[in-house]
Each structure stands twice: as C-alpha cells, then as structure tokens.
C-alpha cells in the first residue's frame, strides 16, 4: 500500500501522472451543478424530515424491550399519530405529538405497567413547538454568522477574494448536497444532525485551505516564468495534494464510521448516530468538493483577470513558437510538474556571462 500510494504520490508530484481536473472543470461544474439542482429540487418537493426537537413532540424510550406492540397500543390511546418502533438491538421507541407534562407522566406510568419496568428507566423527551422553532432558528443563525465570518477570514488569509469565493462555493456545495441526501433518504434531522452539518462546514474549509495553500505556493512565481499557465499550476497543486486528501479523508472517516456503526447498529438512534451520519456524508462530499469544485471555481474566476489572461496568452504563444522548453508527455500533453534534478532545464537556467563585451 505504501509502495503503491507512495509511488503514485511520487508520480503525481513530479507530474508523471496528471489528472486534468482543472482543464475538465466544465465537466465537474455540470456534475456538481446538476447534483445541487437535484438537491434543491428534492428539498423543495420532499423537504427534510425534522425531528421532534425542531417541531415539538414527545418521545419515550423503553430499554431492554424489543416488542413495540404494547407501546403502540398505549400510544394510540393518547394520540392518533403515535408510532412505536424497535430501536437498535434492545430498545423500543414511542413517538407522538405534543403532550402536557401531566399526560406524559400518565403515559410513562402506563408504559412501565405494560412492560413491567421501573418508570425511572423509561427515557422521555418532551419538546414544545416554540422551543423547537427557536432551536431551528439558532442553527440557521449560526450558519449565517459562520459563513460571514469565514468569508472575512478566508479573504484575509489568502488576500484574494476569489480564493475565498472558491472555498465558499465548495462549502455551499457540501452543505446543500448533504442536506439533499437527508431529504432524499428521509433521515430525521435532529440537533445532532445540525451539529454534523455545522462541523462539515469547518471540515470542508479545512480541506480546501490545504489545497489552496499548495495552489498559492505553486503559483507564487507565476509572472516570472512563462512555462506554465495559471490553470496548469493550480491543477498540479490539486494533483500533488491528492494523496494527502485521500489520507486525510480516510483518517477522518475512520473514527466517524466507528461512531456511525456503533450508533446505528447498537444504539439504534440518538446523538451519536445523528452526528456521525451527517459527518460521514459531509466529509465524503467535502473531499470531493475540495478537489473537484474549490480549485476549478477559483481558476475559473481568476482566468478572467486581465493579468492572468495576458500571461496565459504569452505562455501559449511561446509554446506555439517553440521558444519554451516544456517537456511533453507521451500523449502530447505538456508535462506540468516539479522539476526533476538531472533534467535539462533550458538554456535560460544556465549561468549567464555578465557584462558581455
């Protein structure tokens, strides 16, 4: 594995292998655009399935029981919308609409009688509808404030609004896509999921920052050379950070999968499952977007800059005229990569005699 991934990394680093991600950006834009449009459509048509924390309601969890029939019967007596389901391996969950504290106490007593368990061992949650709306409002507020702050921080950090824009587009993409998956699958959105969504934001940016750092490094001397265009160097950065992106994603996803597995198969539901499910989807999408969305968007934005345009034209003209010394790979593409020692770097790299007489 080390050999393969390491050597693959070597080739990516030197430019021996290059995936033309930036050049094919239209393709990725179409793919991502279609997915985003689809997400919006599903959101509008189907909508998300909010948990009781956002709409209000009552929930009971009886431990060490597997038969939901008794709970269903008791629940139906109180509310027509009561639903009892088995949860995980050894729990039963009864959900229903809003109840008063007194009514909920009555239901707990009936459940404890029906199942023969101690009333103190029945978990109950009651959420008022206004409180639920409040929690939802806070989550959206947090999202907006975070986005604003991040735009400022990113712009300051990269000192280039286009990079910030690229990062934010990737961020928005991740969020929309994750929420779209939630809408499509009908997974319940709980405060745990919201934690997950908000963490995705941080994670997505984190990933993008690493790629953009490399882009910046590769293009720091852009205008003092006429060998490669901006897009080519940015593409090299994406390729060079590919191994890191994969390693990072695997390392980040491993613990998340562990929580997801234990949370959904052993516990059935709850905070652990909700957080990890959102994170799992979001991290996977985040890795995709940092590679296929963030940098291409940034390059697309910068390509319209007059300076970059001029530079690109110069590079291409030089190639046309054959006055540049780029090497070509077998399929006739310009090989963009880190310089290999021992390779000829052109007469311009040779020491020049000063004060020619």
């Amino acid at each position, binding site marked *: 594995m080390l050999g393969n991934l390491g050597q693959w990394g070597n080739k990516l680093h030197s430019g021996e292998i290059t995936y033309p991600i930036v050049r094919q950006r239209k393709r990725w834009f179409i793919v991502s655009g279609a997915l985003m449009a689809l997400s919006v459509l599903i959101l509008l048509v189907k909508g998300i399935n909010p948990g009781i924390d956002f709409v209000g309601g009552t929930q009971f969890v009886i431990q060490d029981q597997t038969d939901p029939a008794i709970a269903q019967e008791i629940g139906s007596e109180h509310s027509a919308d009561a639903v009892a389901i088995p949860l995980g391996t050894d729990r039963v969950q009864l959900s229903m609409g809003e109840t008063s504290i007194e009514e909920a106490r009555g239901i707990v007593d009936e459940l404890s009688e029906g199942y023969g368990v101690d009333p103190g061992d029945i978990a109950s949650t009651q959420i008022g509808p206004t409180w639920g709306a409040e929690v939802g409002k806070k989550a959206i507020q947090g999202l907006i404030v975070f986005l604003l702050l991040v735009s400022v921080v990113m712009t300051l950090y990269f000192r280039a609004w286009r990079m910030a824009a690229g990062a934010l587009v990737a961020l928005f993409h991740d969020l929309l896509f994750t929420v779209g998956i939630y809408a499509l699958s009908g997974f319940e959105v709980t405060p745990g999921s919201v934690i997950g969504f908000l963490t995705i934001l941080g994670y997505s940016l984190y990933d993008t920052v690493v790629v953009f750092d490399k882009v910046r490094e590769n293009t720091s001397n852009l205008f003092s050379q006429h060998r490669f265009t901006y897009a080519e160097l940015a593409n090299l950065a994406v390729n*060079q950070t590919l191994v890191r992106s994969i390693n990072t994603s695997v390392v*980040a996803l491993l613990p998340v999968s562990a929580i997801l597995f234990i949370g959904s198969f052993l516990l059935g539901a709850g905070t652990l499952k909700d*957080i990890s499910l959102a994170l799992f989807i979001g991290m996977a999408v985040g890795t995709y977007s940092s590679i296929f969305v963030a940098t291409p968007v940034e390059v697309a934005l910068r390509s319209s800059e007059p300076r970059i345009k001029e530079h690109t034209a110069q590079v291409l003209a030089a190639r046309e005229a054959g006055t540049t010394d780029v090497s070509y790979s077998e399929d006739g593409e310009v090989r963009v990569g880190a310089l290999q020692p021992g390779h000829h770097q052109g007469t311009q790299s040779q020491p020049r005699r000063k004060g020619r007489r």
Partner: protein
Amino acid sequence: MSTAAKAARRALMWLGIILVVGYGALAAGVLTNQTTLAPGLALDLAGGRQLTLQATTTDGSEVTESDLAQAVEIIRKRVDASGVSEAEISTQGSNVIVVSLPGNPSDETIDLVRQSAQLQFRPVLEIDSPYPVTATDPSATPSASASTEPTAQETTDEAAAADEATEASPTPEPTATASASGDEPASDEAAGDSTDDTTDSTDEVSPSSLTWITDDLRAYGDALDCTDPANLGGVDLGDPEAGHVACSADGLAKIYMGPVELTGSDVETATSGPELGPTGNLTGGYQVVMDFTDEGAVVFDEISQRLITLPSPQNQFAIMLDGVIISYPVMNQRISGGTAQITGDFTSEEAATLANQLKFGALPLQLEVQSNDLVPATLGQDQLEKGLWAGLVGLILVVIYSIFQYRALGLVTVGSLFLAGLMTFLAIDLLYWAIGYRLSLAGVAGLIVAIGVTADSFIVYFERVRDELREGRSLQSSIDHAWKRARRTILASDAINLLAAVVLYLLAVGSVRGFAFTLGLTTVIDVIIVFLFTHPTLVLLSRTKFFGEGHPWSGLDPRQLGRDTIYKGRGRFVASTAPTLAERKAAAAKGES
C-alpha cells in the same frame, strides 16, 4: 548540538512541564477531595432530568437580565429546599433557563421548578421565634420560645423601626389568640372561602384580625422550623384568602399573617437608593421605594390607615416572595400617594436586593416548560460505554492506517494522539474542577471526531516532508522546509476549526454546545501537540540513524519516494543507484554509437 535540536529538546521539556504540572494539580485536587479523577458527566451520560424553561411576561414587556437572575435564584432555592443535590441551573440567551437535576427527581420537584414566583402582601398578625413548637399547650410555648430568642427581631434589618417591633415581639397575647381561634374559626374560614364581591363589608373580618390564626394554622405553624434552610426556599404560598404562616428570609422569625391584600401585579416598580431625611438631607442609610399602581395605591392607602391604629406587631405588613417573607416593615404613617419607602439599617446591596426582589415579584413572569428530558442512569451509562467503544475502535483504526501508510513515522502519530488524549483528559478534568464543565454525549462525539482532525495535522506535515524529500532535499532540511510550510497550513486550518467551534458555542443551544466545546478544546490541544511534540520529535528522530538514512521501515525512505540520491551535505552523498546527468548523457551517447 545544533540549535534546531536544542529548540526541539526545549519544546519537549515544556510539554513535559505542562503535563506534570497539570497532572500534579489534578492529583493534589483529587487527594484533597476537591475534585474527582473521573471527568464530570452531563445528564445524558450520568442520567437525570433536564428542563428548559422559557421566561415570558404576560404583559409583553421585555425580560431583563436581572429578572432572569432573580428567577434562577428562586428556582435554586426551591430545588435546594426539595433536597435535590448537585442541581445545575444556568441561563441561555436572554430568557431561557436550563435546570438539570441528577437522578430521577420526583414529579413534585419538577412542578416546583416550573411554578412562577409570586409576590404577596399580607398584614402581620404575630411574630414568633423561628423554632418549631413541640409542646402541645399553645398558651405556654409561644411566650417561652419568644423569650429564648429575643434578639431575633433586632437582627432583622429589614424591619423598619425595629425597636418598636423588638419591644412588642414577644407575642403579648398568646392565650387571647388561642381562645379567639377557638370561637370563630369556622365562620372565619367560611367568610374567607366564600368571599365574593357581594359580601357585605360588615360581615367581612378585618385582614388584621387575629382570628385568622386558626387551630389548623397554629398547628402548621408550630411544626414549622425556620432554622431549617429547607423552609427558607419555601414555596407554600398558602390560601390567598386565609391566614398563613411563613418564615422570614433570614430564618430568624416565624410570622403569622392575614389574607393577601395586595399582589405583585399591584406594584408598579421598586427602586433603591440613599435614604433621604425629612428635609431632603442624606441620612447615610439606604431605602427602598415602592411605587404602586393606581388600584394598588388605593388599597395600600386603606391598609396604611388601618395598620397605624393597631398595636405592634399588627402594625407591620409582610411582603412575601415565593413563600418567604423578604421584609415586614412597620407602617408608621398613612400612605396615600401610592409611593412607600421602606427604611432600616440596610447596606446599599441589601436595599438593591430587596428592590430587585420586589421588582421581580411585580413582574408578571411566567416560566413555560419548553423541553423536558429524562435520561435514566442506565441508559446514560450505556451511551457512555458505547461512545467510548466507538472512540477506541476509531482510534485503533486510525493507528493501524497511519502505521500502514507511514511505517515508523506512524508511531509518531500514535505517540502524538496518545499525548493529545492525555492532555484532553487533563483539560476536561481541570475544567470540571474549575468551572464545573461536564462532558455530554455530543461532547464525546466531538472528541472522537477530533481524532481524525488531530491526525490530519500530522498527515499534512508528513506529506510535506515527503514532498520536500522528493524535491531532493536531505531529511533534516526537508523537515525544516516542510515545517515552515505545514505550520502555516496547520495553523490556518485549526483557526478555521476553532472559529467554527466558537461560533457554534456562542450561537447554539443545548447539546450543540457540548460538541462545540470539545471540538474547540481539541483544536487548541492539537496545536500544542504539533508544536511541542510532533515537530520536535521529528527533528530529533531525523538525527537518528534509522530515520536519517531513510531505513525502508522509517516511512521516509527516499528510494521509495522516487529519490535515489540524497545529498548528505559537505559533499557527501549516500549511495546512488541512479545515473547522474553526465552518466546518462554518456549512456545515451553509448546507445547511439
């Protein structure tokens, strides 16, 4: 030794000092029983009930910070009085109170918490010593007990004209009260219970009448022990249309009162300030000024006219907030303007507290239960166990993967993660000790997610080192260059993470906060570990033969990274298998020929 190695050693030493001092402090705390080794657990892990209460006013006015603080104070007293220990009451935002009660508190306790506070004004009928009366003979004990505790009144600084009250406080006519209550209680009760607007005023018993002290009330009052703090968070408001007995807030007096004559809604506002003498001069004391509403002013005028004619202590009126008497001043003049001053030897804080209590009582504040969660202790423990298992499994997977990817370098990751874990545990323990931070399930999830984020900063760094090796640098210079670049990236991404955590913490409610907290905490710890452990360790390891010469198992083998020649400095190279430029040219020329 080079400066880099010296700096690395110094960094490791600092890390050691931080850990030793931190754990030393923790050990000291544990040994002196000030804290525990196990971190504090929140309700969803330890089990318990959590109530979210939203304070609203019925008249649509704004709930201020001091109103909320008063409400919290009252809830705290009620909870303490109900015998639930370790309850946590906190506020969120401008109008939300979160009450966390460990275990499975009784329904009564929960009802207590959600009750709104009430301010009542009742005329004082009798002031007794705070001790419970055990003897069955009512005629003997009150005077006896009063004489045992004659100082009670003197120390109640709220009582204006305390001297009068003190003189009169040994209840003068216990026998009279007893006989009176023997004669008329039934009719009084009937009158009190059926009081409606049509009741003729001649039929009505004066609220200051001692007949309000019925046998039942006397028995109840005799059993009341005002020295027991449980009764000072009392919430028994009594029947508003009957007599009542309650303790003074300082626990120094037990006061029998008539029916309620005014309530909080009759008070407009209350303020405190320096006391002014009759000529407007400062007396050096402090006073509380109560403003009544128009209706309240009329009633208060009537009360004041009646009370000034009565003997002490019946010339006093008690102000009862949430079942406890916060003040029982003497009425020394008719007050018709709707503004009453309460004077006494207050300090400025005491006056301000009383004014706040009055204001709060005047506020039509309602507490609405917004969420009500019960987590049984067994469920909490189960969740904690499963959460820890998930963390362990995640950690092991990350360790396996990083050793697979980075060979011996992966061990640096393992060591860093281990130290980060030690430091996180320490931080959570110390935070529990210092500010009572409790770990919730969402917090545990945050810790597990952080494993990935922490490991990632090592990946960024190691990949950088490899990149530099690929460029053909020596290991030591690779580490040097890689560190300069990776440091920036790691700091930037950690700053983003921290920003996310802070925004989440400040804006979110409930479980989201626990997650944000651990995420922010681990991000800070990540920075500390990378700077004080991972980088210095790598610098020192690069000086060992195993890593420095790029052993195949070191994870930094240049040959596996596509680089066969390593410049070792000072004109030395390690064995090179690849041809140099000259050799290649020679080979090419040979091939051509």
